């Protein structure tokens, strides 16, 4: 789960990171009031769950109240990569003497939290990683000891050679960011940039935090941080129904048990010249309600011309699954054709049940996918 910059900075501030003051405004009037409160100049920053806000014109320096009015009214409502700006963060504009990147993520290779930092702050770190990888320092943090003083200071000194005061501020910021990362069950936490003003004082002026979805149960307060308006409605419904779902641009609606098989199914649709409408893992159950929820979500997309079930009955028996699908389609009449492929335990029995319905049974994945594409073409 991703949160907005202003929310990330609230978490940072709670862990003692030097975050400048700031508040969000949903209207131009609120933005002007905040600018008055903090004093000019201010930054007006769009709060959207995507990167590249600056390039899109979503982050503006405002010297006067007229600037604030003009920029806030431009930015509020702006569309940045499909995200509509509903809030702006108003925060004092600081003089930047130097900029740094400090970020952490879960690293598969070291199986640790990986600290990455760079003197190339303020830039897109993925771009730095590609163009100038040697400019990024990496340090996997031993969970048994945390980020030790000397480790953080060594990195700080590499970023600020000869300036131990700045190095110490960076080191402290890294240690606090790590404390925040662990306490928040983050999967990503970035300060970009961490700047020094000309007086040598450090500030975390932009930040990003993503939470580990698996750890949400430990953080009841996170639901309040979720920006429901910014979410795709179908993806929100799927989340609420505990389904793994990703919306795509095609017309073949896919319902598959298991994530790997679901991806392989999408790939196969593409292989045969079709376009999957979604990724959806309905899990191992044959519960008709779950199937109904999944169908509802997929069918909200009017582009969907066919439904493709691809079920491998491993532990769950195919006849149970077939019954589940049949009951679900009775509970929720569906106009587009439905192709069902059932394999595994009791597959013959399962297919026999389907034969009595208007569902289109298939024996193999390939047959099912080809049939679905064909039916999608007919429906279009």
């Amino acid at each position: 789960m991703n949160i907005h910059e202003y929310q990330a900075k609230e978490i940072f501030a709670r862990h003692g990171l030097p975050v400048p003051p700031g508040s969000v405004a949903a209207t131009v009037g609120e933005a002007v009031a905040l600018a008055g409160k903090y004093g000019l100049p201010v930054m007006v920053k769009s709060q959207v769950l995507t990167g590249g806000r600056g390039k899109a014109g979503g982050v503006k320096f405002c010297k006067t109240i007229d600037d604030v009015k003009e920029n806030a009214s431009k930015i509020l409502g702006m569309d940045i990569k499909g995200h509509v700006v509903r809030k702006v963060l108003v925060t004092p504009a600081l003089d930047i003497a130097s900029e740094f990147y400090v970020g952490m993520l879960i690293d598969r290779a070291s199986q640790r939290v990986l600290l990455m930092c760079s003197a190339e702050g303020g830039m897109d770190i993925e771009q730095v990683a590609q163009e100038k990888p040697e400019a990024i320092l990496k340090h996997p943090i031993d969970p048994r000891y945390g980020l030790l003083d000397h480790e953080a200071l060594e990195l700080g000194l590499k970023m600020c050679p000869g300036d131990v005061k700045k190095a110490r501020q960076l080191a402290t910021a890294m240690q606090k960011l790590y404390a925040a990362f662990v306490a928040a069950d983050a999967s990503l936490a970035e300060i970009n940039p961490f700047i020094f003003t000309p007086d040598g004082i450090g500030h975390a002026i932009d930040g990003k935090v993503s939470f580990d979805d698996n750890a949400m149960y430990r953080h009841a307060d996170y639901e309040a941080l979720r920006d429901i308006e910014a979410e795709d409605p179908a993806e929100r419904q799927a989340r609420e129904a505990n389904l793994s779902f990703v919306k795509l641009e095609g017309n073949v609606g896919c319902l598959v048990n298991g994530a790997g098989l679901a991806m392989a199914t999408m790939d196969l649709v593409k292989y045969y010249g079709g376009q999957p409408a979604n990724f959806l893992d309905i899990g191992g159950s044959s519960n008709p309600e779950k199937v109904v929820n999944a169908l509802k979500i997929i069918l909200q997309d009017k582009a969907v011309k066919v439904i493709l079930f691809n079920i491998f009955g491993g532990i769950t028996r195919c006849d149970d699954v077939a019954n589940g699908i049949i009951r679900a389609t009775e509970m929720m009449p569906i106009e587009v054709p439905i192709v069902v492929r059932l394999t595994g335990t009791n597959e013959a029995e399962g297919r026999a049940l389907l034969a009595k319905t208007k569902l289109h049974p298939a024996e193999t994945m390939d047959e099912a996918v080809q049939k679905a594409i064909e039916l999608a073409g007919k429906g279009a």
Partner: protein
Amino acid sequence: MAIFVDKNTRVVVQGITGRDGGFHSREMLAYGTKLVAGCTPGRGGQKFEDKVPVFDTVREAVLNEGANTSVIFVPPAGAAGAIMEAADAGCKLVVCITEGVPTIDMVRVMPYLKERGVRLVGPNCPGLLAPGIAKLGILPASIVKEGPVGLVSRSGTLTYEVVYQLTAAGLGQTTCLGIGGDPIIGTNFLDAIEAFNADPATEAFVMIGEIGGDAEEKAAAYIKAHVRKPVVSFIAGQTAPPGKRMGHAGAIVSGGTGTAAEKKKALNEAGIPVAERPMDIVPHLKSIWKR
């Protein structure tokens, strides 16, 4: 023969009195697995299915029943603790089926296991099934068959799909291993491939990868350098959009890395055929495998 398990594997199931733990324990017993104990705190002294003793702690299961392997079905909040308990009690193989374990918990678990020389499979995995030897986890016994092929996969049902096709083609398996789709897992492709390469019974093997991370690339490099047995691969998630998690916590293309294309390229460069469709795996294997 098989990898990771043998006839001396004695299993304790943590969470045996739960719904899933109970169901799959019955399946494991039915397959003939030496499931010697269960563990649920507060249920010590009970018997599972009137025969398997249940203990409060894994240590008691190890001391009283000689358990050396644990299969874990406890809920996510207790899963990391259960893994550590099994390791601390002396289990040398721990299979964690639980899905949804917080990642930072797994970060904390890994050095603990390393210090104790414990192999973990999973979490969030179907476990492993060595036909004729033992079933540790949830892989359906009905689709496997004894034979010379090894199979390792990050997926669950996609694994079943491939095993099904292997069995249907008369190609039995030494071990079918699901390593799980989380970013931090105990046993990765490299570990499995080293083991299959060293296992005399395994004559050829199949590796089912997916988007995210670079475990497939590392495996490819290892295979190129060290493996002379026939290997066929498949990568799921070619059509996955970047930045979106495809079900598995680890199945995500981020920052332009972890794409299916990269993985296929690495595998091809290592001389490993990559099947375009799941149904191409068996023909590929047959074509390169001179039995």
